[in-house]
């Protein structure tokens, strides 16, 4: 894998920030877009733009074709059984909200229980709380240890006859932990409980095969895997998608509408109310093709090396606490300089041209677990280099010198 060649595909990387070359290490928040993805967006608007699933005319048919090609591509990418299991959403958050609502309506009665983990992004907490409030359900929390790994055996202890669904992230956006999702699914399935996998932080790092995992639902965001923002996917096993009522009503999701009785469109359109982000879907198609040409395995191997190198460099500095020391991690490094506030560290790194995220990363329970206001998070993607990590380490040392007396 030729990193310099890859970097040339990402025009945004080639710029100066406050007089320093941009070092973009905020990839867990969003990834940058390769030129081919940018081109696909322009091409869509300059050649095919037209509303999908509606028109009789050539452009509409063409636009629909690309939209459905994108669905096909996602289906292949995660190895779903059928295109009817791929619902386009605006992102992981909407995917989980859709599921929480529809699953709640279909299967949750007062007194039922939902299991989520302590390391979930707010997107995999709040939709369940809203649903629990509506349906009179209770939420149980699967804890993690100080290394950032889910506690062994805790799931078994939390499951009971009222448990209706287990919702766990594949990869922690804050700690980088890769959870043993296969084992979680097996445990839940042994009790006939379906599992939602939040793959927002996994899809860009790990080859996902939903049939092999046997997960019942999976949520992902396009912008985390080099596609445009505003497009995501809810994967669901057909039997659940058939049984659950739709989340939102509107155009495209109906078969027949009358004031007496409205019937739903076939899957997956039943869950796609209104005009979908078809340009975004097209960009996702191109992004996934791009990832395929580089190879997810190659990307993962490079990112692993970056993470190891960065962890080593940060440990060498001394006086740095790293949060998340799981054995199996993706390229996310969360840390604090002891005696300094994460926000100050982020501000100093920013002025050195280094983009990191600071704060709670939408995971307040993780911050509470460690008793801290936040962390600095550096997250690496396929286009990051070892030189950039050297710059990060030098930046941290500089910040430490300024902030810690």
């Amino acid at each position, binding site marked *: 894998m030729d990193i310099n060649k890859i970097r040339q595909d990402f025009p945004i990387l080639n710029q100066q920030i406050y007089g320093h070359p941009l070092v973009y290490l905020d990839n867990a928040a969003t990834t940058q877009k390769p030129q081919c993805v940018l081109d696909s967006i322009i091409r869509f608007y300059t050649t095919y733009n037209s509303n999908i699933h509606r028109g009789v005319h050539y452009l509409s048919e063409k636009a629909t074709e690309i939209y459905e090609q994108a669905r096909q591509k996602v289906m292949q990418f995660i190895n779903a059984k059928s295109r009817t299991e791929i619902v386009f959403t605006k992102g992981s958050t909407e995917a989980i909200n859709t599921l929480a609502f529809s699953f709640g309506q279909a299967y949750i009665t007062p007194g039922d229980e939902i299991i989520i983990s302590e390391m979930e992004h707010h997107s995999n907490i709040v939709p369940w709380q809203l649903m629990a409030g509506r349906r009179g359900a209770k939420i149980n929390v699967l804890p993690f240890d100080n290394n950032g790994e889910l506690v062994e055996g805790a799931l078994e202890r939390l499951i009971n006859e009222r448990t209706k669904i287990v919702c766990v992230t594949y990869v922690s956006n804050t700690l980088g932990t890769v959870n043993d999702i296969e084992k979680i699914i097996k445990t839940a399935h042994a009790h006939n409980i379906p599992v939602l996998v939040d793959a927002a932080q996994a899809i860009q790092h790990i080859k996902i095969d939903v049939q092999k995992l046997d997960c019942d639902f999976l949520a992902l965001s396009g912008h985390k895997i080099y596609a445009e923002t505003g497009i995501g996917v809810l994967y669901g096993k057909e039997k659940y998608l058939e049984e659950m009522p739709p989340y939102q009503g509107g155009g495209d999701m109906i078969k027949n509408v009358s004031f007496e009785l409205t019937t739903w469109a076939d899957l997956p359109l039943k869950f796609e109310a209104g005009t979908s982000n078809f340009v975004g879907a097209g960009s996702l198609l191109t992004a996934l093709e791009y990832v395929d040409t580089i190879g997810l395995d190659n990307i993962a191997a490079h990112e692993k090396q970056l993470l190891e190198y960065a962890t080593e460099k940060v440990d060498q500095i001394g006086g740095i606490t790293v949060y998340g020391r799981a054995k199996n991690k993706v390229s996310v490094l969360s840390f604090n300089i002891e005696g300094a*506030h994460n926000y100050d560290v982020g501000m*100093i790194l920013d002025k050195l041209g280094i983009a990191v995220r600071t*704060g*709670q990363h939408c995971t307040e329970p993780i911050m509470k677990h460690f008793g801290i*206001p*936040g962390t600095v998070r550096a997250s690496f993607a396929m286009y990051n280099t070892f030189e950039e990590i050297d710059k990060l380490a030098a930046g941290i040392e500089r910040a430490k010198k*300024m902030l810690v007396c």
Partner: protein
Amino acid sequence: MTINEIQDQIIEEFSIYDEWLDKYEYLIELANTLDVIEDSKKTPDNIIQGCQSRVWLDAALDNDGTISFRADSDAIITKGIIALLIRVFNHQKPDDIVNAELYFVDEIGLSANLSPTRANGLVAMIKQIRYYALAFRALEKK
């Protein structure tokens, strides 16, 4: 000194810094000299909750009819900016604070820190300073 005289003085002080990190060094220095709010005054009433850093602010009307402010933050660069704001508004009359036009932050290049989308509590702090001034002015008029 008037509010504007102090603002001009701050602008003058910052004019020697070309480098961002030198500005931050100076802010950190100022933060370390800030006469901070006592821990007992760091109450939920006095907290201005930003998403990323927290700010505490307390105010009192002195016998000479001016307001004295005390503040603190858990983030030190934010605290340095607070030190500047306190320097501008401390021991000023409520009327002058209410009518003041705050221009030094822009001039020294720190306005990004005061954009409403920045979750550091500074925008809310300035609002709070004005509320105190309005409240004390109303008290005086009684």
